[in-house]
């Protein structure tokens, strides 16, 4: 048996030895985290992350990016990420080294329609987003979604974005032909999904700019999605985000599936979504860069 005095000395020495032992992993952890934060803080990258609609693949926006690159002085590189149903990521394309505003398309192996699939796709998207944010360490980004891609974005912002909001800012969201009320024409018949999205609208950041573009092939719809379903987005975003702007393009290529290649839409993207080619190029403002919170990532 130890005497009391021995016990006392033992506990003091033991604790300090323990301190030295945990100081080593603490040191590396600290260096790592601070380096990571510094890189993110200094990062100039502000990608445009795009999600295609149902039944579309990661190749969906090739033509759009080509059109955009034709017009802009700086060429944007294109990275495509496909999320498999088991959560594995498949990359094609790449981000050029000096490209501060690359396009990243995230598509899904299971690209089916329906609310339950959209929830799953939001979860898959989160896997991809988490990896991309670790890899490229951007501190802000812009979001673009065509058709159901806009739904995945909205669902993701409401349910997952808070995990990142302390160090990554979502600056803008542009949805094109997004059916916030699916195919329902009458706004009084709210689908389960729309009700859920409205219920959680308070989680959408208030400094976000949202642009909702609809196509007008005829007076009621873009040939597939009713205009009233696109307009239902106002019940989610209006009075919650900083600006919620709606636009309708008509004329040539205003059909739902043609919208991403529509010249007007391309112009709108250049005008509203992209940073570059403006008077003050790439003034990188990470917004409210808060002290990082070490919240365990909520697993949904």
């Amino acid at each position: 048996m130890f005497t009391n005095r021995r016990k006392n000395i033992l506990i003091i020495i033991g604790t300090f030895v323990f301190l030295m032992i945990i100081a080593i992993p603490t040191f590396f952890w600290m260096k790592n985290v601070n380096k990571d934060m510094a890189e993110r803080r200094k990062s100039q990258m502000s990608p445009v992350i795009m999600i295609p609609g149902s039944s579309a693949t990661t190749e969906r926006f090739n033509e759009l990016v080509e059109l955009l690159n034709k017009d802009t002085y700086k060429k944007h590189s294109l990275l495509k990420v496909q999320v498999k149903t088991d959560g594995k990521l498949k990359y094609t394309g790449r981000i050029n080294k000096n490209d501060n505003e690359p396009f990243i398309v995230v598509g899904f192996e299971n690209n089916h329609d329906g609310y339950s699939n959209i929830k799953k796709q939001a979860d898959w998207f989160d896997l991809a987003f988490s990896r991309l944010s670790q890899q490229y360490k951007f501190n802000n980004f812009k979001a673009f979604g065509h058709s159901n891609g806009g739904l995945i974005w909205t669902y993701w912002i409401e349910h997952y974005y808070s995990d990142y909001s302390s160090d990554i800012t979502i600056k803008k969201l542009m949805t094109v032909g997004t059916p916030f009320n699916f195919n329902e024409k009458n706004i009084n018949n709210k689908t389960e999904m729309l009700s859920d999205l409205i219920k959680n609208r308070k989680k959408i950041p208030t400094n976000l700019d949202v642009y909702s573009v609809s196509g007008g092939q005829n007076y009621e719809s873009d040939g597939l999605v009713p205009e009233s379903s696109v307009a239902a987005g106002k019940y989610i975003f209006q009075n919650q985000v900083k600006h919620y702007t709606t636009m309708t393009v008509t004329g040539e290529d205003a059909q739902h599936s043609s919208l991403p290649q529509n010249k007007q839409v391309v112009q709108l993207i250049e005008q509203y979504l992209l940073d570059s080619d403006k008077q003050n190029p790439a003034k990188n403002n990470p917004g409210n860069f808060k002290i990082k919170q070490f919240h365990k990532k909520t697993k949904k």
Partner: protein
Amino acid sequence: MVDRLIFKMVVWVKRRSFFRIAERTLTILMPLAIIGSIFQFMWRSVFSPDSLISNIFYFDNWLPDPVFDAAWYASQGLSSVIFNSFGLLVAYFGAQYTARYYHKDAQMAGIAGMLSLLLCAYRFQDTSNFNITMNFNWRFLGIHSFLFALVIGYIVGLIFRFWGVDFHHQHTENSDRIEWRAFASFRPTAIALLVGLVIGIFTSIIQVRMIASNVYQFFQNEGQNNLNLWTFIPLLALALFLNWFGIGEPLNSLTANMGSGTNVANLNYALEHGSSWNIPNKFVGNALYQSYGKFGGSGVLLALLIVILLVYKHDNTNKVARWSFIPTFFGSNQGALVGVPIILNPMYLFSYVLIPVLNMLIAALFIQLHLIPASAYQVLSGTPGPIVSFMATNGNWSALIFSMLLFAGDILLYWPVVKIAAKVQTEIENLNAEEAGFEYVH
């Protein structure tokens, strides 16, 4: 001459009935406080998502979520239950020991004390659902309102002193005696409840709670304002004094917030420039306090515990120091505050308030002289005191060495204090023994 005077004064204060009762109450509650602080340490340092251990060992990568959550909730729950209902126990034992001190029915006094405190904290104006649930102002029932609970307990004990019947506890009680006891305690219990009721109604009507919350709010706002050192230090000294006095909320509020604008500006600057040497606000009071003012919780108690372990001969205090050592090491020092005790113990008042202030001033001087960088980087909750500054400077070695030296200095400062405390303890034990009529043997 002077130290003789201090010695006499301390002994005199410690022998006042209120301080005696405070000490007895603290002593009996020591086990709970230590258990609570051990679980608080597990919660803050090991199982909370922003804690040191869970981060450096990457718990979220390999520990199954249910296990982590269960451990987190368990440690958080146990420490919360203990510390948030601590005031009730304080009122109970406060009243009990006061009554026993004056040879009255201690158990009944304890119960009356507890109920009186509940009456004081009851939300009289919150009448919705009053037949299903009761609403209390829990802030007045927790450990941070120690003094309040103790005063209520003491008053109830005094009521028993003046209106109760002389009483000696016996091992066996027959029904006649129980009956007598019940009738005898009728009057003091009624008076005690009435007093509790009057205080409760009175505070409800003149909104004392509002005033109290405003005072707390004041400390909280000041804490968030990132005061510079010269405004922060007087407030900190006041808050430390109040914590010693058994009012913990001001210290809590003043030193809680770290994520405010000035800190963000500092962190951003440090991240951009790769070090915290030239951050724009070098003398943010709270940042200095976190790094240098609290090795092991408030009042640099880790240094005190080390000295106690090394020089104190008193066996039980030694045990308390051993049991509360590890939680205190990680910054959960409630066990030490209650167990040693520090609260309402005149012996430790000056060192408890002044050593943190002194530490911060020395650190500020060193920062001013450009010998150590200012603290700007984030620190995980439950980081052991002596390495906080090392982390907050992103691993600056001079900051670490400075911390260690400062800590060694604190140990030296506590050394004579503990020596005197040991003497005072012996003296009081002798005096008590004499008073109790035992033969004093050297």
